[in-house]
């Protein structure tokens, strides 16, 4: 359901939101293709399908706001403002990648942008976000901190403890459960006893569930939660129902779900399509603008891949650096 507030967004915000989503989609589709050719090393988890979630939240954030991401971090990184070319180089393991090639897809971070890192540990982020929120509160920066966590990660004790700590310390924090129906091959309808909203209530957090394919619904729920946190109203939880298009990681044969299920979401509930339909139907953006944004995103990603492929890897002199500030 379109929310009036969503469509009342200034044009430049609508353009910015669509650009974020297109950048993410183009990035992930292209990484998917490149991975298949064997040029990208390691474990890679793609965010395609979930773009409205990262975008709906990050539209409300600035550099003094922090987020902690998951293993499926590219979308959060891009939406939080990480440099796309430096990200691509990182995924390729290049020396001038965003993390010097030492982190890779699972550990992209940019603290200057308030991006505390993708995380290889499920449930790794929520405690860190309590800390970022504590910094904001103690140093009175006016910032908020957001932890993204998957449906699978919502069962990790570190996540659950963090709900309570944020409540007890009354932190400017938001927990976003991105429920894409699966944790690897395991369905969230099986793995999650109770429900995300009742869990929030269990720890005294206001909770809200949104259709994660609808950018405007996410945008509005995010606004409510972020404004509450920023205004001293304490932590809360948003349960985002979404879907990932690709496998758990690149290489997954996806035997645990049916292609029909995926096809249906792609055809009926794709967040980019829904956005496009909404804004063009309402006449606030026109098709040409939309097409241009899509084309720009693809071009940017093409360049990013070309540069990443051509970039130099780190070498022996880099192996032992960056372990300590001083040792």
């Amino acid at each position, binding site marked *: 359901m379109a929310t009036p507030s969503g469509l009342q967004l200034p044009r430049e915000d609508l353009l910015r939101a669509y650009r974020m989503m297109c950048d993410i989609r183009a990035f992930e589709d292209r990484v998917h293709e490149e991975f298949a050719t064997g040029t990208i*090393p*390691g*474990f890679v988890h793609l965010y395609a399908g979930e773009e409205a979630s990262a975008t709906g939240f990050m539209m409300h954030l600035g550099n003094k706001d922090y987020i902690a991401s998951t293993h499926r971090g590219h979308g959060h990184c891009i939406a939080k403002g990480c440099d796309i070319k430096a990200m691509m180089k990182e995924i390729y*393991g*290049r*020396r001038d990648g965003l*993390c010097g*090639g*030492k*982190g*890779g897809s*699972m*550990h992209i971070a940019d603290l200057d942008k308030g991006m505390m890192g993708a*995380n*290889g*540990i*499920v*449930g790794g982020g929520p405690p860190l976000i309590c800390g970022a929120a504590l910094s904001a509160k103690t140093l009175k920066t006016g910032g908020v901190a957001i932890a993204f966590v998957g449906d*699978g*990660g919502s*069962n*990790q*004790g*570190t996540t659950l403890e963090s709900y309570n700590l944020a409540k007890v310390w009354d932190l400017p924090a938001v927990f976003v459960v991105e429920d894409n129906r*699966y*944790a*690897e*091959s*395991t*369905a*969230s*309808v*099986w*793995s*999650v006893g109770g429900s995300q909203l009742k869990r929030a209530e269990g720890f005294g957090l206001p909770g809200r569930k949104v259709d994660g394919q609808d950018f405007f619904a996410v945008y509005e729920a995010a606004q409510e939660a972020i404004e509450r946190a920023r205004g001293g109203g304490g932590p809360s939880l948003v349960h985002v129902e979404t879907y990932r298009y690709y496998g758990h990681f690149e290489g997954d044969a*996806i*035997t*645990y*779900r*049916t292609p029909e*299920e995926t096809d249906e979401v792609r055809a009926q509930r794709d967040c980019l399509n829904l956005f496009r339909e909404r804004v063009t139907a309402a006449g606030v953006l026109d098709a040409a603008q939309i097409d241009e944004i899509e084309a720009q995103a693809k071009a940017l990603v093409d360049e990013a891949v070309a540069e990443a492929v051509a970039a130099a*890897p*780190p*070498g*022996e002199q*880099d*192996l*032992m650096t960056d*372990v300590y500030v001083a040792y």
Partner: protein
Amino acid sequence: MSRKTYRQAINEALAQEMRRDPTVVFMGEDNVGGMGAPGEDDAWGGVLGVTKGLMPEFGRERCLDTPISESAFIGAAVGAAATGLRPVAELMFVDFMGVCLDQIFNQAAKFRYMFGGKAVTPVVIRTMYGAGFRAASQHSQCLYPIFTHIPGLKVVMPSSPYEAKGLMIQAIRDDDPVIFLEHKVLYDDEEEVPDDPYTLPFGEANLTREGNDVTLVTLGRMVKFCNEVADKLEGDGIRCSVIDLRTTSPLDEDTILENAEETGRVVIVDESNPRCNIATDISALIAQNAFDALKAPIKMVTAPHTPPPFAPELEDLYIPDQAKIEAAVREVAAH
């Protein structure tokens, strides 16, 4: 007898023990896969397929998927072991120990001692370790020195398919808590493995090569590298013994010391980070107990004191390889 991969050898050990003993169950994230999902029934068999194919024979009651709640399910395996089952729990990557270590090192490892000998906790914790997959800092660690440090745990590190089957069957039959470390790069390695069940003993190292010049003490994936180096150096007239520890706890001190005394020259190859690791452990054992026989400094070849890096070029430098091992052996031989 037929050729089997490391993965198949472990799978077969599990299947045979589950057939033999109805109290053997296994559990872990996606260990069968597909719980609650609309797709195939035996959807995954674990992230690298090690337990694939077991559920159709043994059923969902003995082949358990879990939520991502390592403390709860590893602890459940420990509690089940103390109350009548013989669970094999999978900690997907050993790097995840940090979210569930308490149940391993304060509960499982200490029950028997704290309870005055009255508890028996026959749990096996299977876990994947090691670098080589470009999986970066949080999915490539070794960490077996940590388990080895803890009294009450047994720590097992099969170096090949044959070793994996025999050690896994022993692990399941063993009455103490066992940490069973599978190197992710070895899963597709293949060799002749007997079809019938057999056990390999804990605390008895395997001398894979015999030679009088230098003793190589090693474990896990590094056994292969050491054997290759030993083969190569034989051509240059340097004859090496290669000791595959098989288990770091218990440790076969006798084999190590006897061999070290014979050669007087020792190189220890350990894939883990260098501080307080197996290399230092063996080195200290020898320096204390075979000192008078030593003819050269004890050399250690290990990963550097850094987290595992992502970039392939860096990861290749990070892993102890044949060239570094060879250089160490040559240096010790020449001393």
